[in-house]
């Protein structure tokens, strides 16, 4: 090469830009317990797989003396790479450059990589660490956010979109993660809110810390905005990498298959169900007794624990699990658990992932607060999501399946492909106590010993109806199976459902009860 000088010049320019906001700013970032944007990308992607674009982009602002300021890379790093060989497009906001604030060119870099991800049909990962809009750039900054939200929406259901909150993400900025499929947060590092503590204090007189208002725990346990909670950035990256192994690269593909593996011996499916049907057990033990390698990757572990969702593999194929959790709130459906399940069902459907539903619930949670919080509207989401899903839907009724809960949890009537029930299943219009009180009301009231009569009638009802055989006699249940047969029959069902194709009536889009 005759012109070594030019190569040297490029190298020098690059080296300077790779430092982002400079050494001092990097020190500050580390003092907050955070990695730099570049370290994060390199830590997440396969070794030597990252290719960066737009390293030389600068801001284009002139007001407020901005024309005299240089902001290297304009505060965001974009590029492509791989995770366990899967292609991903990635951006990471760089807090060391003007607090990672979003100006016009910053947003153009993000939208460039988003366009690329959609066009090339690959997952998009966004690492958020930003003080918010760059005030000096005014409405251009708002335009930038709007362009990002639009692309999040258009890409939704086509490519997987993952948001990682590794710093502040406040004001309008929160809506990009909210529009994506999965949000990852890290304890003490992630902060998300629309209005910060200071404004809340001045306007409303309420005092609250950033952590209590919108920290990682709040969004994992209370709001349901976050799907994965980690104690460190390192743990968070391991979670992201694991998620990527479970999902397809886009909606025209299936997730990559793994080597099939048997569940671990320690999860004995015959020993999980307690004798007393009103006593709890951990539904995750059942999932682990069914899934390959007993590997269950739970999503939203800390939120609405009365329903359990997540990925596992069946015969090497990614499978979504939706299961009532009798250990928490007896496994009832309520506002939060309905939201949680419905969204996951739609995710699985959008990305060609079969769904196994494990049913054990006494119904919906009664109460004024639930009714007033809109349990009708939220509960309807579950019905909607199951009904419209065209991926293979397999249901196993383990124990209680009462009333509306029975219908909602992937019943035959919502077009489950296969419905199985254990002999312990109780498929009925309501629990024996409630049903007996209504049906035998007169007999109980007029009996010499009403309490004795009530007990007797409850027992009668239990004998007659609290079983799987009434539903099986109508064909609503395809087979009553022994727990030990569950994995084998589910593997078979998934295997033969591989080419499932259900034509749906043409429409622009449906109207799920948002």
């Amino acid at each position, binding site marked *: 090469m005759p012109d070594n000088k030019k190569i040297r010049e490029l190298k020098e320019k690059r080296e300077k830009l790779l430092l982002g906001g400079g050494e001092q700013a990097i020190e500050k970032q580390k003092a907050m317990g955070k990695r730099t944007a570049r370290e994060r990308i390199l830590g997440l992607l396969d070794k030597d797989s990252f290719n960066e674009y737009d390293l030389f982009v600068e801001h284009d602002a002139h007001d407020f003396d901005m024309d005299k300021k240089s902001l290297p890379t304009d505060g965001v790093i974009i590029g492509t790479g791989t995770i366990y060989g899967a292609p991903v497009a990635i951006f990471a906001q760089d807090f060391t450059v003007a607090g990672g604030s979003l100006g016009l060119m910053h947003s153009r870099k993000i939208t460039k990589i988003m366009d690329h991800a959609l066009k090339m049909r690959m997952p998009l990962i966004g690492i958020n660490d930003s003080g918010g809009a760059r005030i000096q750039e005014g409405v251009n900054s708002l335009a930038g956010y709007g362009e990002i939200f639009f692309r999040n929406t258009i890409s939704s259901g086509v490519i997987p979109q993952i948001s990682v909150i590794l710093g502040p993400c406040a004001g309008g900025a929160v809506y990009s993660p909210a529009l994506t499929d999965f949000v990852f947060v890290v304890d003490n590092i992630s902060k998300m809110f629309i209005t910060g503590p200071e404004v809340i204090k001045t306007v409303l*007189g309420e005092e609250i810390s950033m952590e209590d208002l919108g920290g990682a725990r709040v969004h994992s346990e209370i709001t349901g905005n976050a799907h994965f909670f980690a104690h460190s950035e390192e743990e968070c990256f391991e979670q992201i990498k694991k998620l990527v192994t479970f999902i397809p690269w886009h909606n025209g593909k299936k997730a990559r298959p793994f080597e099939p593996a048997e569940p671990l011996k320690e999860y004995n499916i015959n020993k999980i169900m307690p004798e007393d049907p009103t006593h709890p057990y*951990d539904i995750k033990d059942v999932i682990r007794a069914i899934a390959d390698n007993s590997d269950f990757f739970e999503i939203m572990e800390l939120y609405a624990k*009365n329903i359990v969702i997540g990925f596992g593999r069946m015969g090497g194929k990614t499978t979504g699990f939706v299961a009532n959790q009798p250990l928490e709130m007896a496994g009832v459906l309520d506002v939060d658990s309905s939201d949680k399940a419905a969204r996951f069902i739609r995710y699985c459907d959008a990305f060609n992932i079969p769904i196994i539903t494990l049913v054990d619930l006494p119904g919906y*949670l*009664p*109460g004024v607060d639930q009714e007033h919080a809109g349990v009708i509207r939220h509960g309807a989401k579950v019905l909607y999501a199951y009904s419209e899903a065209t991926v293979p839907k397999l249901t196993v009724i383990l124990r209680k399946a009462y009333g509306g809960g029975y219908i909602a949890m992937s019943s035959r009537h919502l077009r489950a492909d296969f419905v199985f029930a254990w002999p312990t299943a109780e498929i009925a219009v309501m629990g024996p*106590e409630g049903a007996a*009180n209504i049906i035998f009301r007169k007999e109980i009231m007029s009996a010499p010993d009403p309490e004795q009569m009530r007990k007797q009638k409850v027992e009668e009802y239990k004998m007659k109806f609290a079983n799987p055989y009434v539903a099986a006699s109508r064909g609503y249940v395809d087979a009553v199976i022994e727990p030990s047969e569950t994995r084998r029959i589910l593997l078979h069902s998934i295997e033969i459902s591989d080419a499932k194709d259900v034509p749906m009536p043409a429409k622009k889009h449906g109207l799920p009860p948002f």
Partner: protein
Amino acid sequence: MEDNLEYLNINSGLYKTRINPRFRNRKKYKPADPKLIYSFIPGVIVEILVHEGQKVKLGDELMILEAMKMKNRIKCSLDGTIKKIVVKQGAKVPKGTLLIELE
């Protein structure tokens, strides 16, 4: 697993299970009492337009509660008398604070 298990009643069935904080801390429902006027939004009482013992009519303006730069007129919920004015002018009140008792 036997930790923190309690009984939860769902449609007459009693189930042994864990109770979540949202359910445990849920607000018990109270029917609205038209004799008690509460702040519907946090803010500042900038003006009190009535005094204790005054006769008032449904829809009369009782006080002005400024919140989010808006001056909200708090109106009377029945025909009656001002029994007690609980807050003072200039007071910063959270949402749900009792402002006035009527009779």
